[in-house]
């Protein structure tokens, strides 16, 4: 009796499990870090790459390394190559569209630690300095050195960013964006395929996050449209358009990014409030005389 009840359940569950494993394989990604596994402790063959499939976005992605190119900071960046030794925070800025009055007021209230308006971290008000979530797309822009990964499931694509260990769910089950969602740090996202391009639309972003390290703002009305296209095993093209009429008078079209597949896995990089607070008190704030050395 028990087997007759279980059998109709086992078959679809088994199929689902198999499909999960198939989608979830990564392209030649190995996993170790200092303080964790050593390279010789990993099973052989664990990271043999799969054949190329344009509809499989899985993998660990990062920005290419160029001498002097530190980090991408925003949808557009003025300086792509920064000479070594240049204080980058003085050399870069984003190029957002013109702001509305609301957007400009927000912008003026933000005191960033990067860019032409930068102040010492202890004097700024960037919420990430207290371990608040970075939000999207700002977390993504850290991915030059701190990569992110796509994990593909039957009804969703998970985007996992190493920096701050942030997760973003992109639903692929056919649902539309929510009509009037409660704001979320990483918003709400849905995705579908148009040929070989994965189109992602997002809304419902909490307006406490900044778009970038320069303090470019956004409202809870922000809508993002992204287009991902895997051109080969090692390269993923990505374009982004931000529409936020409450903040900007026209859409902000980001520069196209070509992500490069990394051959090492994501590792844990969590901003622990207690640790950040301790560091801030003992080092950062003491550096500007805000706390006692």
């Amino acid at each position, binding site marked *: 009796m028990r087997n007759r009840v*279980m059998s109709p359940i*086992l078959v679809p*569950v088994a199929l*689902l*499990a198999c499909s*999960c*494993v198939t*989608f*979830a*394989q990564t392209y030649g*990604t*190995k*996993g*170790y*870090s*200092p*303080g*964790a596994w050593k390279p010789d402790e990993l099973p052989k063959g664990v990271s043999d790459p799969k054949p190329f499939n344009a509809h499989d976005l899985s993998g660990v992605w990062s920005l290419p*390394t*160029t*001498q*002097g190119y*530190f980090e991408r900071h925003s949808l557009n960046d003025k300086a792509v190559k920064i000479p*070594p*030794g240049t204080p*980058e*925070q003085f050399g870069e800025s984003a190029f957002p569209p013109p702001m509305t009055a609301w957007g400009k007021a927000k912008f003026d209230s933000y005191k960033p630690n990067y860019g032409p308006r*930068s*102040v*010492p*971290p202890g004097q700024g008000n960037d919420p990430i*300095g207290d371990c608040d979530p970075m939000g999207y797309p700002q977390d993504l822009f850290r991915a*030059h*050195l*701190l*990569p992110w990964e796509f*994990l593909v*499931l039957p009804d969703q694509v998970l985007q996992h960013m190493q920096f701050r260990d942030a997760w973003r769910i992109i639903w692929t089950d056919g649902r539309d964006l929510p009509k009037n969602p409660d704001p979320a740090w990483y918003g709400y996202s849905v995705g579908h395929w148009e040929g070989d391009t994965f189109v992602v639309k997002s809304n419902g972003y909490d307006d406490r996050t900044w778009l970038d*390290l320069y303090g470019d703002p956004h409202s809870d009305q922000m809508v993002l449209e992204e287009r991902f296209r895997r051109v080969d095993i090692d390269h993923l093209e990505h374009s982004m358009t931000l529409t936020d009429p409450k903040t900007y008078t026209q859409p902000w079209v980001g520069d196209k990014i070509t992500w490069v597949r*990394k*051959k*090492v*896995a994501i*590792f844990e*990089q*969590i*901003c*622990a409030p207690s*640790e*950040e607070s*301790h*560091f801030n008190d*003992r*080092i*950062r704030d*003491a*550096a*500007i*005389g805000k706390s006692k*050395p």
Partner: protein
Amino acid sequence: MKLKLSTCFVLLVGSLVVGAPLFAHHGTGVAYETGKGTEVTLKGTVTEWIWANPHCGLLFDVTDAKGIVQHWGAELGNPHKESLGGFSKDILKPGDKITVTGHPSKSGAPRMTLSRVVLADGHALPDKAVKGNGEEDPSE
């Protein structure tokens, strides 16, 4: 048979981080001297070694010729980046004698961004240079 979410996807924990220039972190260059020739070198004793995300930190006491103790602190990057250069959570402990070189705070406060630390046995850290934003992957 119960399907757990953990069986549906593979999470590989552990990776090698690329080295990030220290000045790329938290707008550090705004608070510290960054120019050539601005580094200072001090001899001191470790009081605390902070091994944590997103930053590591080194606190050490420096005693001058008059016996006055100054409480210094040095800022470093995240643990995995520092691991590339030979640092670890146990490499320093209170009481260790060290020689520290770094760029001091613009405010004059006894804080710096760490360039190099030499341990009592002469071992200098970081013990490996990362080329620009060089990416290393010994697993390849």
